[in-house]
Structures are given as structure tokens and as C-alpha cells.
């Protein structure tokens, strides 16, 4: 009995020291030991500026520059399309969904938005003012081309 208690205690000590030494090396977003309950960060605000953003690459789905809180997108109604659909943009003055949304997977152009493109937030996301949790080394292709030309 005493032996097993000692063994468990030894395991526990070894475990915590291992975890502490590992915490410096393993990439983690949780900078606290499992036992600690850190204060959660503030929920970031959605950027509601209505200004278009540059795309990271030409095929990138544009990000949403406004709030979409509680927008209903289901079988019964699509709040996004009530402004962005072809027939609605004249009144709403919102950008129309791109023509790619009207083709099915065989490239056939349909009269309405294709069901596979119906759920907007599968690709399009509103943006927040949160600071990135990890560093990003992504390079824009235009910058790469510029660097390439400069080196030659």
C-alpha cells in the first residue's frame, strides 16, 4: 500500500516536471498548466466598417466587412442573399455574389445560386479585431514576384 502511494507520487512529480519542460518546446496556445484556469480573453469585436479588403490570393473568397449577427441562413431563408442575390443588388447596392455561385460542379450555369454555394459562411467569414495568436509567415505572391525580380 505504502509502496503504491509512493509510486503514484513519483509518477505525478515526474509528470509535472516533464510537462513543464515540454511546455517551452511544444507549440501550444494554452500557456498555462492543465490545473490552472486562466482568465478567458475578451471576445473580439467584429469589424463593421463596410470597407472592402484586399484578397490574399485571386481565388480567395472575399471576407465579410460587416456584422452578420443572427443572420438566418437555412432552408427557409437566406439573409445574405436578401441583399447579395442577382435580383436584390439594385435595391441594396451590395456586391452581387460572383457568377461562380451559379454553376454546379459540372460547370453548368443555373438560374439561381447553386445549392452547393448556398451556405455563405462555409467560405465567407466576418473579421474581428483580435490579435493573431501565432505568427504568420505567409507572403503575398506579388511580394514574391517583386523579390524575385529584384534578385535577378
Amino acid at each position, binding site marked *: 500500500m505504502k509502496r503504491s502511494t509512493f509510486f503514484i507520487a513519483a509518477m505525478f512529480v515526474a509528470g509535472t516536471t516533464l510537462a513543464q519542460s515540454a511546455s517551452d518546446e511544444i507549440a501550444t496556445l494554452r500557456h498555462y498548466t492543465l490545473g490552472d484556469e486562466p482568465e478567458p480573453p475578451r471576445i473580439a469585436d467584429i469589424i463593421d466598417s463596410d470597407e472592402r479588403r484586399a484578397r490574399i490570393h485571386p481565388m480567395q473568397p472575399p471576407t465579410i466587412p460587416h456584422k452578420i449577427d*443572427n443572420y438566418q441562413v437555412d432552408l427557409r431563408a437566406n439573409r445574405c442573399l436578401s441583399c447579395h442575390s442577382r435580383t436584390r443588388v439594385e435595391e441594396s447596392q451590395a456586391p452581387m455574389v460572383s457568377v461562380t455561385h451559379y454553376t454546379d460542379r459540372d460547370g453548368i450555369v443555373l438560374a439561381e445560386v447553386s445549392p452547393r454555394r448556398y451556405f455563405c459562411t462555409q467560405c465567407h467569414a466576418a473579421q474581428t479585431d483580435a490579435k493573431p495568436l501565432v505568427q504568420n509567415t505567409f507572403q503575398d505572391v506579388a511580394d514574391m514576384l517583386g523579390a524575385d525580380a529584384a534578385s535577378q
Partner: protein
Amino acid sequence: MASVIQRLKAYWRTFSRPSRHLSMGFLTVGGFVTGIIFWGGFNTALEATNTEVFCTVCHEMRDNVFAELKTTIHYSNRSGVRATCPDCHVPHDWTDKIARKMQASKEVWGHIFGTIDTRDKFQQKRLELAKHEWARLKANDSLECRNCHSEVSMDFTRQSMRAVEAHQRELVPGNKTCIDCHKGIAHQLPDMSGVEGW
């Protein structure tokens, strides 16, 4: 038979000329006090039916529209000002309120006979019910919205750009009223296929 009629006649004499039996002061003051009690009682009962607690007694309201309201900004927001059911769905003016309350008797009928006693039945009937409310708000120029959201007090400089544009283009000249664009803000939308503007 004749004695019954005689007795009724006697009652009627007392009833039609009470001042022969009771003093003028008693009748005046008594009538006044009774009036207060009845009128007050009527209004108290009326106001009791004009509360969220009353509305959500029925599961049709509690499990459908009220449950949906809870996720919206009209229920929970930064300043804690919120709208309850009657704020939007019962006119504030007395005559209009009584008219609406009379209409609501049909809703009691619907509850008793289970017109929308399941979620499926409610979804089936939802477009029709929503159309009633849209028509009502359209007809009174979104009066229940404007009871809180005054166009005059709206600070456009504090709105987002697209809100400013839409309000300046449509709301200020009176081309549209609130409900024309702001459908489904406090509850989920019905099947909107075929609805104008969707």
C-alpha cells in the same frame, strides 16, 4: 305565472327608480366607487394579459417565438433595455389595443384546438402568421418599432455606412417603413420564397 310577472315588475320598479329607496348621496358616491372598482379591475386584468409572463403561459409562445427571441438583440444587449412581447405586438393606444385584444380571442381558440401545438404545425403555419404581423406593421408605418426607435433621434454618424445609406435612401424620404427591410429580427423567418424582397 301572474305572480312571477308581478314580482318582476316590482323588481324593475326598484331597479329603475333606486332613488325612491336609497339616498341620492349613497347612489352618487356608491356609483362612483363601484365605477372605479370595475374600471380599475378591467384595466388591471387587461394589463395582466399584456405581459410577457402571460404570453409565455402557452407553450406555443414559450417554445417557439419566445425561445427564438432570447437569442436576439431585442432580448439581450449591452445596455439591458429590452422589448417584451406586447411592446411590439400590442398597440399602445387604447382603442387599437382593445381591437387587437378582440382579435386575440381567435388565438385562444387556436390554443384550445391545438392549431399550432407542435413545432412542425407551427412551422407550417408560420408564413401566414408572419404575414399578418408584417401587414399590421406596414399599415401603421411600423408604429410599434417607432415607439422606441425614433427616426428623429437616430444619429446616422454612429451607424455603419450601409445602414446610413439605406436609411437615407429609403427611410428618410418615406419610401419604406421599418418592417419592409427588418423582417425576422426578433424571431426566425418563415419560408421566404415568394415574399417580396427575398
